[in-house]
């Protein structure tokens, strides 16, 4: 055989993104995210601190949830311990803690359910794995149900479709009800009530920020591209995560939406009442809080008299919008019935692309070799367009329409089987950073593989949490923080707007060289 050089990778180059970790009992037992203060708790209608009769309150609440949510009871009753879910959780893969196996996480609560709500558990608890609710058990719930991002990957592989997220939400609801809530989620929900969004970004600051972005857009394109807010009588209300107003690369996505609307002369507006698409009420399993947050969107739509509602790039917001909005805050019979409601910004943009109404110069994105991260809530709880799998295809179609170099990651880590970013479900907080880094390990390994195989440099996403999480954890895996992009950022770069001047070279990115990832520590020990 003649010698030849080849760029094809060898088997040794690859690490299995879904490799089993070495088991480490109790590895993350002590991981305790900050608890909410009394002020944060009370604003949401929960007790400020652990109530004296917490045991009875917790059991009563569980009984209440069992009657309200039939699925919850079915999930607790139907597990046959087949083990199909055990190796499917990214936090288990990252930490090696057996209690992060989905079945074990469920059993933390299932064991208590059996003790108090099943005949066998009442009389022969030891024979059926039933146990009393003690303060230690409550603490265990708090720690391990805050190591679940409610991404629902495990439920895809469960032959009974048991949804760990539902159990995790119920556990958090019980914890809130006894006065043991999480600071990150509950403080943020309070800010939505006080100010209107997760950031607590007041309207004057929001208006000043949008004006600043309009200046930037004018400088870039020479055009007056607007980011309108509170415009009565606009056709479209855009509800987007507040991170789109302040975070990177989220802002570039927002500018992308604005350019798409500008390109077709759409009449649209943001709202200071609904300046948040996110709905952390879902993360804490609280129907009341989820509903209260959702009603702000209804209020804004009615006050502004819009005809349509479009959602920006936010994963769990799209789940709440797509699956629950009508029940929570409907009926939306005042909207124009000719349009799908609610609509995702990717559906909006892709529809225009299909109609030939948007033009692109794909070469403007030639500095990127891209892949796409499916966000859990979009992938497994929603759809886009009118065909099965539209939630996978439409964002990819947009990327392929705007970029020349697109490569998917391994099939068992994308689409329905996508691995979580590691920061979803109310875990995007600094006090859980170690867990976040470990939980990102399957996704980062899959990304490293396409980096080696196809020279992929960047990953795009359509979720504010995913983007912030990756910007933070990618440097731990040998990438740069700006290797994560918004899908509409690629749209923004490539879109051809009538009368716009040619873009200037962005020197920041020209000298970018894909870094070599450092040697990886064994699974379960990533720092």
């Amino acid at each position, binding site marked *: 055989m003649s010698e030849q050089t080849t760029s094809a990778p060898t088997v040794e180059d690859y690490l299995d993104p879904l490799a089993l970790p070495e088991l480490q009992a109790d590895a993350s037992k002590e991981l305790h995210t*900050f608890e909410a203060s009394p002020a944060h708790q009370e604003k949401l209608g929960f007790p400020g601190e652990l109530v004296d009769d917490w045991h009875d309150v917790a059991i009563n609440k569980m009984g209440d949830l069992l009657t309200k949510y039939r699925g919850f009871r079915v999930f607790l009753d139907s597990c046959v311990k087949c083990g199909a879910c055990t190796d499917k959780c990214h936090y288990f893969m990252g930490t090696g803690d057996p209690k992060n196996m989905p079945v074990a996480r469920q059993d933390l609560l299932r064991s208590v359910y059996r003790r108090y709500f099943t005949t066998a558990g009442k009389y022969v608890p030891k024979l059926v794995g039933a146990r009393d609710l003690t303060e230690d058990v409550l603490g265990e719930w708090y720690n391990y149900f805050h190591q679940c991002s409610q991404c629902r990957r495990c439920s895809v592989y469960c032959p009974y479709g048991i949804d760990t997220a539902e159990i995790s939400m119920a556990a958090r609801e019980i914890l809130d009800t006894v006065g043991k809530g999480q*600071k*990150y989620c509950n*403080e*943020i929900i309070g*800010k939505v009530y006080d100010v209107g*969004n*997760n*950031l*607590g*970004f*007041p309207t*004057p*600051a929001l208006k*000043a*920020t949008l004006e*600043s*972005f309009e200046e*930037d857009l004018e400088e870039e394109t020479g055009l007056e591209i607007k980011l309108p807010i509170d415009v009565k009588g606009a056709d479209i209300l855009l509800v987007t*995560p*507040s*991170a789109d*107003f*302040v*975070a*990177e690369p989220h*802002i570039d996505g927002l500018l992308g939406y604005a350019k798409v609307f500008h390109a077709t002369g759409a009449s649209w507006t943001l709202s200071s009442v609904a300046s948040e698409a*996110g709905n952390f009420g879902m993360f804490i399993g609280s129907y009341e809080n989820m509903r209260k947050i959702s009603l702000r969107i209804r209020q804004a739509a009615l006050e502004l008299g819009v005809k349509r509602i479009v959602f920006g790039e*936010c994963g769990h917001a799209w789940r709440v919008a797509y699956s629950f909005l009508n029940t929570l805050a409907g009926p939306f019979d005042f909207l124009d019935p000719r349009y799908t409601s609610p609509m995702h910004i990717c559906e909006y943009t892709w529809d225009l692309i299909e109609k030939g109404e948007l033009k692109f110069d794909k070469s403007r994105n030639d500095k990127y070799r891209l892949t796409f991260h499916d966000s859990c809530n979009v992938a497994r709880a929603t759809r886009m367009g009118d065909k099965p799998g539209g939630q996978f295809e439409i964002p990819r179609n947009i990327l392929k329409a705007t970029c020349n170099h697109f490569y998917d990651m391994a099939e068992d880590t994308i689409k329905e089987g996508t691995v979580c970013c590691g920061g979803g479900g109310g875990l*995007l907080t*600094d*006090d859980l950073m170690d867990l976040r880094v470990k939980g990102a390990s399957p996704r980062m390994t899959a990304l490293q593989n396409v980096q080696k195989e196809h020279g992929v440099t960047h990953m795009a996403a359509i979720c*504010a*949490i995913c983007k*912030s999480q990756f910007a933070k954890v990618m440097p731990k895996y040998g990438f740069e923080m700006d290797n994560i992009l918004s899908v509409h950022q690629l749209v923004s770069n490539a879109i051809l707007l009538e009368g716009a001047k040619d873009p200037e070279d962005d020197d*920041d990115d020209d000298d970018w060289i894909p870094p070599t990832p450092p040697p990886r520590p064994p699974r379960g020990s990533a720092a």
Partner: protein
Amino acid sequence: MAYELDGQTIEHDEEGYLTDLTQWSEGMADILAKDEGIEMTDEHWEVVNFLREYYDEYQIAPAIRVLVKALKKTMGKEKGSNKYLYTLFPYGPAKQACKIAGLPKPTGCI
């Protein structure tokens, strides 16, 4: 959970952010910076002062992009960049610089 400064006790939260931002002073900023392993230079002060002025006007810290734009005007193109901000505040200007400026920790999907 409190800092000690000139015999005064100044409360902070679990992560070291001041509970009452009216208790901030330049001396306090030095203590906060030391906790973060940061030696305050003129450039650090430029950022901290801008954050405090912005907060005074809007009751919130600005988007980093808005901060960078303002710094570009006062410090020039090279120093008015995201990357330079990260050299000043390696853990992230949003969180680290806010802390030193005595502002509350930014929350949300950021």
